[in-house]
């Protein structure tokens, strides 16, 4: 079975609540925390998010993303894609349905467990880069391993390797203010991937960049995907989305199209 076929089967299954793969196994200690299928890094099953005050940002969304996939979640502002990012990134919890990340039922995890999941399995890239000022690139990247319990010396070694992977081996000791926007975003990508995450989430990674730097950043993400990293890009830019293997289109808190 090819990856595409499996994904197809999954999408179908998630749409049917009684489907074989989605619902957590009832018996067994592991069942409460892990979904059955090890092929999906992200599974949303009828996930909904209503904020206090009655705003429904996400209205019963089902989606599955496999290990090694690269996909865009695309939609205009207010379509719920940021909320989707928060749910997939375990930064927030669904108010309805289930979210599985790397096999864990997010709703069943404590804050500490969710933190550990983020520390080891999820890497984030933000539109505003969020680099620490006055701190060298290599130390900014090394912070990506801080909460995974890695010692300082190894953090720095692995940070240098990660910077090499995004093509910034010559910028190790530069501070953020000495870097261009595209370089900053590549440092942020290096920080996200330094821990070897199962899932790399990029939230409008090119939003603050000119088209040339933006293209370079996308190229880095694409290269990472080719090396086996799962990459999810959240964007409002159709053109960027078209350039990725899979597009999930959002509107008004629902998925209105999935190219897979």
């Amino acid at each position: 079975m090819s990856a595409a076929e499996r994904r197809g089967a999954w999408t179908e299954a998630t749409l049917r609540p009684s489907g074989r793969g989605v619902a957590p196994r009832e018996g067994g200690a592991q069942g409460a925390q892990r979904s059955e299928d090890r092929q999906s890094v992200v599974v949303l099953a009828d996930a909904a998010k209503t904020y206090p005050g009655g705003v429904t940002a996400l209205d019963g969304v089902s989606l599955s993303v496999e290990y090694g996939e690269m996909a865009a979640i695309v939609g205009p502002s207010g379509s719920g894609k940021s909320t989707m990012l928060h749910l997939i990134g375990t930064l927030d919890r669904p108010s309805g349905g289930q979210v599985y990340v790397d096999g864990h039922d997010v709703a069943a995890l404590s804050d500490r467990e969710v933190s550990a999941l983020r520390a080891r399995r999820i890497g984030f890239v933000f539109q505003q880069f969020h680099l620490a000022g006055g701190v060298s690139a290599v130390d900014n990247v090394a912070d990506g391993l801080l909460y995974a319990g890695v010692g300082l010396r190894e953090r720095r070694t692995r940070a240098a390797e990660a910077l090499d992977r995004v093509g910034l081996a010559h910028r190790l000791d530069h501070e953020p203010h000495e870097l261009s926007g595209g370089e900053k975003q590549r440092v942020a990508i290096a920080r996200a991937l330094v821990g070897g995450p199962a899932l790399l989430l990029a939230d409008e990674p090119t939003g603050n960049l000119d088209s040339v730097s933006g293209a370079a950043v996308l190229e880095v993400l694409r290269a990472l995907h080719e090396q086996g990293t799962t990459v999810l890009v959240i964007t409002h830019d159709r053109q960027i989305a078209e350039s990725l293997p899979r597009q999930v289109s959002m509107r008004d808190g629902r998925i209105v199209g999935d190219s897979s």
Partner: protein
Amino acid sequence: MNRLVPARLRLVDVARVGGAGLRARPLRVFLSALGIAIGIAAMISVVGISTSSRAELERTLDRLGTNLLTVSPGTRMFGGEAATLPDESVDMIGRIGPVTSVSATGNVTDARVYRNDHIPSGQSGGIAVRAARVDLPATVGATIASGAWLNEVTAKYPAVVLGGKAADRLGVGAAGPDTQVLLGGEWFTVIGILDPVPLAPELDTSALVGWAAAESYLDFDGHPTTVYTRSREESVTAVRTVLAATANPEQPDEVEVSRPSDALAAAQATDRTFSALLLGLGGVALLVGGVGVANTMVISVLERRAEIGLRRSLGATRGQIRAQFLTESQLLAGLGGAGGVLLGVAVTSVYASSQGWPTVVPAWATIGGVAATLVIGAVAGLYPAIRAARLSPTEALATP
């Protein structure tokens, strides 16, 4: 692999993360640490200076000895007449076993001393004329600043030794055969001037003449008014209890016995209430410094919402965020505390050396000062740290 247990942050990393927040804003750190430093420095120097002055007192008492007892007549129970000591009291006290030396002075009540015969008689300068026994300096520990003390010969002639303050008031700078003062209507030659006598300050304002000279020139009645006695250290208390009865066996209740070294220590004790007041002021300064640290931390948390959000997305638990801000606050206060201790020690040593005292800062004060800053850091940082930890990651990241 299945179990999701957050990694423990190593202590080094906790300190690094806390310190990173401080390094980014050096001026603010300096100013809020300064508040703590001033408070700690104030408290350390108050404690240090009063301890140093006590060390100086102990040094003085070691030098002067605490075994000097003075005996003087008290007041009569009936009748206003001043009590006197019997003439034999000096010899009787000398016969008490542990007493090592004994001496006496007697007030020459009617005599006044003037620089010359042009001074109006009212301006006697508060100087008392006393007859002194030749062995007085050895017993009270007096030393000669200029000239010589009375001897068996000069004690019979019109010669006078002035106390330090008395010489100042009379305007006598140095003793010599040509220096004369008018004492009880007779010209007396100033043969010596005393250094200040800490254990017998009444001698500082006295003009001291020989016992025989006082009787022959000044109508002195020969009664001793103050008997000075030294005894062996271990027996001072025992001697003290029998002294009154020995000096005046008929009327022991009319005798006053005192220990001058106690008076010096008592003067020190009154200083202590003043020290407590200053210590309180230092405490207020410290409190204000603590409020400054709390304020800095609250602002820091507000400003760094994005950083908090990022750290949460990197996998920091609530506890780790809390620890980060608590560490930062404690480092901030601890920095101020260390600076304050150094400042306080410096102030103490400058003041003590200007007074010629030994510099003594007790260990409990420095340890207590540093411990106090850690407590202040914890208290001041607790609320901001809890707020930082409660921030939801999505809300924190939404901040531009």
